[in-house]
């Protein structure tokens, strides 16, 4: 394992300390219990948005703390959801009197820890669970679908609504609506290595890719031979489209999310491929985002996300945002 680290058990704290120092105009980093909050929190009268989960997905979530998005993020250990005390402490720090909305990716661990936090906190609070990954079959008898890069879209749009003064119930309803309008699927070209594990999470042959991979290097739908970018984009987009069933000609947001180890050059090439797919299927790409937003450490690969837009969602997407990783309009 070759990484920039001093000691595996200090990776998270040192990295967060660096993050806090580099973005002291936007965030404050609190340790033990650990969370990242808006520098100007609590914002009086605004619904406070809190997300969290395992680390290793940077910039998710700490990179999305700031005006127009999250009020706090709780980083757990690498690929391990945060603990209830972190969430409770964050909630206390950023609650501006209008209640707290937790945005949680659908993993057994994340959900359970947020539930325990909710039990501890009391007060006005609600939860939105994201589950946009179409690689996994949905069923009420299982854990259901994973929450992946679509979570960024939920955080952005609900963040905008909260910034504009929506109340807790409206924020929760909007979060669920955006989540329902959003589907993703990913593919890995290489594995990633959890620092404390010291060896790659999985092994792929020189000509193999993992179709439908999760954001922790979890195996996906199937392992297949490497194909052309167009063929890969078509597979992902087809799965997304089949599930989302967007209205013909309706506008959509297309997000090409890098997993960390894939160069921007290839991400834009995948965007080009996905966009051509959309054009062929009468899906109008009205908004776009290309880059590393929900990563899996240094994994090579990417996910595609499509959100069906309407006027309200488009305006929320365009609303000013000022965070470490996403910034426009301010």
């Amino acid at each position: 394992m070759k990484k920039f680290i001093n000691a595996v058990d200090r990776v998270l704290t040192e990295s967060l300390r660096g993050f806090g120092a580099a973005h002291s105009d936007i965030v404050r980093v609190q340790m033990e219990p650990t969370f990242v909050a808006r520098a100007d929190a609590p914002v009086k009268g605004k619904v406070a948005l809190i997300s969290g989960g395992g680390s290793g997905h940077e910039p998710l979530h700490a990179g999305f703390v700031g005006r127009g998005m999250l009020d706090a993020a709780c980083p757990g250990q690498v690929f391990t959801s945060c603990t209830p005390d972190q969430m409770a402490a964050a909630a206390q720090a950023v609650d501006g009197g209008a209640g707290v909305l937790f945005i949680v990716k659908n993993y057994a661990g994340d959900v359970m820890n947020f539930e325990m936090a909710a039990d501890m906190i009391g007060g006005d609070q609600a939860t939105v669970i994201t589950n946009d990954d179409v690689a996994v079959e949905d069923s009420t008898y299982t854990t259901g679908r994973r929450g992946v890069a679509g979570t960024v879209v939920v955080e952005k749009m609900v963040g905008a609504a909260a910034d504009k003064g929506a109340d807790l119930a409206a924020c929760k309803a909007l979060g669920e609506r955006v989540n329902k309008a959003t589907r993703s699927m990913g593919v890995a070209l290489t594995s990633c290595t959890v620092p404390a594990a010291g060896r790659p999470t999985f092994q792929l042959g020189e000509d193999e890719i993992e179709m439908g991979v999760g954001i922790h290097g979890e195996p996906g739908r199937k392992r297949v031979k490497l194909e052309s970018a167009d063929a890969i984009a078509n597979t992902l987009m087809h799965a997304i489209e089949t599930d989302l069933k967007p209205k013909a000609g309706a506008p959509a947001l297309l997000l090409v999310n890098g997993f960390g180890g894939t160069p921007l050059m290839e991400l834009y090439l995948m965007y080009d491929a996905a966009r051509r797919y959309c054009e062929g299927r009468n899906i109008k790409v009205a908004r776009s985002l290309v880059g590393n937003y929900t990563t899996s450490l240094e994994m090579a690969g990417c996910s595609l996300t499509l959100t069906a837009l309407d006027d309200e969602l488009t305006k929320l997407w365009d609303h000013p945002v000022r965070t470490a990783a996403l910034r426009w309009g301010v």
Partner: protein
Amino acid sequence: MAHELTRRLIDAAVTAIRDHADELTGLDQAIGDGDHGINMKRGFDAIADAPELKTLPLGDALQKAGMTLVMKVGGASGPLFGSLLMAMGKAVPGDPTQGEQVQAMLAEGIAAVKKRGKSDAGEKTMLDVLVPVGETLAGELSRHASAKETLAGLCRAADAALERTRPMKASKGRASFLGDRSIGHLDPGARSSQLLIHAVCDAVAESLPA
């Protein structure tokens, strides 16, 4: 004043997890996200780092240990093993001395895991070790087996139950995302449960009058 049984149990559990952390992580790499051993070790290291636990009656120690896991582990195993221990501790305010007390403790613990995990036996999780072990304990008690026989029976039950998770298809936890590809691998949480059962049984066996 150190509580002898509490101390023995904590030491045995901590050692079992530390010694197998790498293996647990390996199991989780196959059908999860490769952190189970790291998670459990972080939690049991924190327990080891709290010497005051060893001075408490078992019930209180279990509750505190469970809370430590909840606060230090995260992931699925933090709330689940944490709930297990907290519920067991709550069920026995002092030190359990009778098999029936232990059985009640375990039953409470298992119920808490099921509730927290919205899961049950048969879903390829830690419950697939805990539930059969609980049933075995009930069986041994009802046939009035000796303490030694009972402990040996629990270990055998845990071993067999662990092995039975291999052919299962996961429907809860991270492995469930794999669908059929979860088949053919041991469940990491089942393995850590089996390790803990062994550790506990061995520690209790050692404390039995020869």
